[in-house]
């Protein structure tokens, strides 16, 4: 698919918000899915080579939004793209968050994990849910779009490792305090955080859905580069993060096998 860039807005030194116009994509996209985006400005160059996976952070009319952190070549190139430039990308890929209605939901986002959670918050609000968002980052620079998030949640609890915004500490702490208030939990962020959240939810017998990051080559299930191991009954089965994921039942993930960093 292809689309025109509506805006590529710098949120701060690390984060960007990219809005792309593409009706076809928006029609197919579901909450929790991601896109494989071509970050090269010219198709006749080969470095970087592969497309990059980015979570769909929102859709609006015929536009969809990505929120990304600049970490390497691909995201650096993305950040240099200008309004009106045409980018190419896959159709929406992967599994989706469960769309419950009128439930009390806790959403946890760590750092750039906010991307798919942003849309999730909006979608759950639309379905009459109570939406509490626990949003943690290292510093004040790692918690973005706070105004918009406030509008789309019932409670927004921000934490930072250094206390430069919100509560000082890890994001799971305030969540655990309120855990009795929820019917279901959703999380996206660093794997250590997802593991902790999942363990807490299992202990409290709460359903928990996590969105996992894995390096991806194809993003469509062919290369087997993105395996996540899940418990299924007594055995462990292999799932592809790009097809059966990125959203998994957090209680089933075999955390010891999940790549670090």
């Amino acid at each position: 698919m292809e689309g025109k860039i509506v805006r590529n807005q710098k949120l701060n030194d690390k984060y960007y918000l990219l809005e792309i116009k593409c009706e076809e994509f928006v029609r197919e996209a579901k909450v929790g899915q991601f896109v494989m985006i071509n970050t090269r400005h010219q198709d006749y160059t080969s470095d970087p080579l592969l497309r990059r996976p980015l979570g769909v952070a929102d859709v609006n009319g015929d536009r969809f939004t990505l929120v990304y952190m600049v970490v390497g070549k691909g995201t650096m190139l993305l950040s240099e793209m200008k309004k009106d430039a045409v980018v190419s990308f896959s159709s929406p890929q992967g599994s989706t968050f469960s769309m419950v209605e009128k439930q009390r939901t806790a959403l946890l986002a760590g750092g750039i994990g906010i991307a798919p959670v942003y849309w999730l918050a909006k979608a759950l609000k639309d379905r009459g849910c109570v939406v509490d968002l626990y949003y943690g980052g290292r510093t004040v620079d790692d918690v973005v779009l706070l105004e918009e998030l406030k509008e789309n949640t019932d409670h927004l609890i921000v934490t930072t490792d250094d206390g430069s915004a919100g509560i000082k500490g890890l994001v799971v702490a305030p969540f655990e305090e309120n855990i009795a208030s929820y019917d279901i939990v959703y999380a996206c962020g660093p794997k250590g955080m997802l593991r902790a959240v999942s363990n807490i939810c299992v202990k409290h017998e709460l359903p928990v859905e996590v969105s996992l990051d894995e390096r991806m080559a194809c993003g469509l299930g062919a290369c087997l580069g993105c395996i996540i191991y899940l418990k299924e009954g007594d055995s462990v089965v292999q799932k592809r993060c790009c097809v059966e994921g990125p959203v998994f039942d957090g209680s089933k993930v075999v955390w010891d096998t999940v790549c670090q960093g």
Partner: protein
Amino acid sequence: MSDRLKTTFCGIEFKNPIITASGTFGYGLEYAKHIDISKLGGISVKGISLKEAPGNPMPRIMETTSGMLNAIGLQNVGVEKFIEEKLPVLRKYDTKVIVNFWGKTLDEYVEVAKILDEADVDMLEMNISCPNIKEGGIAFGTDPKMTFEVTSRVKKVLKNKPLMVKLSPNVTDIKVFAKACEDAGADAISAINTLLGMAVNIHTRKPYISNVTGGLSGPAIKPVAVRMVHETFKTVKIPVMGIGGISNWQDIVEFALVGASAMQVGTVNFVDPQIPLKIIDELESYLTANKIDNLSLLTGTVKI
């Protein structure tokens, strides 16, 4: 579509010589919702073994400059499940099916080959060159005597299907291996598999790939592939399928000139699944514009 791309390879008629490379196109079906796979000349499926194989631990892939490393470790559903579950669906599409296969032992190679020989597939591609598994694979592909032995043993049990042997680039002299295959009765050679490489994350100080080393593929390796395909072409009389870093129609012509009769497109399927179809269209236009009746007329015509 004219006949300019029609290709006979080992007696099999491909509508065009563009085949998707093993391991980069799953069982074909994964791509069926993204492109019309019936337009492809053929599909070489992910390497199949006797029993289902779990592959290597994660992480398995990493991008490098104009290429990528992978150590999938030949994860696959096993030959039985492949024939029962994947093949019937794949067969609904109008494209040739090449089954890439491997074994941990000589006997396993023979066993899988025997089963596939009776299955509804068009051709076998024997992988003796995977750098990512400890047993089998690479050992058969880096010792000419073992290459000869596994090829002749497998060839002996095949009654119906042509056998193509896929060579490793991680050798001092690929000509020796090409000759060993031909002498052992192989019907064709495909070259090259991936180059053995490594990359380290300087922050964690750990290799990016859990297997430590992985196979390097993509545009970065094309010059090595072109050289080896040419060496192979000059050494044997059986046809050669060229693989390695192909990303556009110009690359197809380049591989044809150095001696490939058909080509496999690998890593760039990940870059954009449309690429093989784009290559087919543009190759057709090139041949038409240059009044070349069939791509095979270019095979091996490099002027040296």
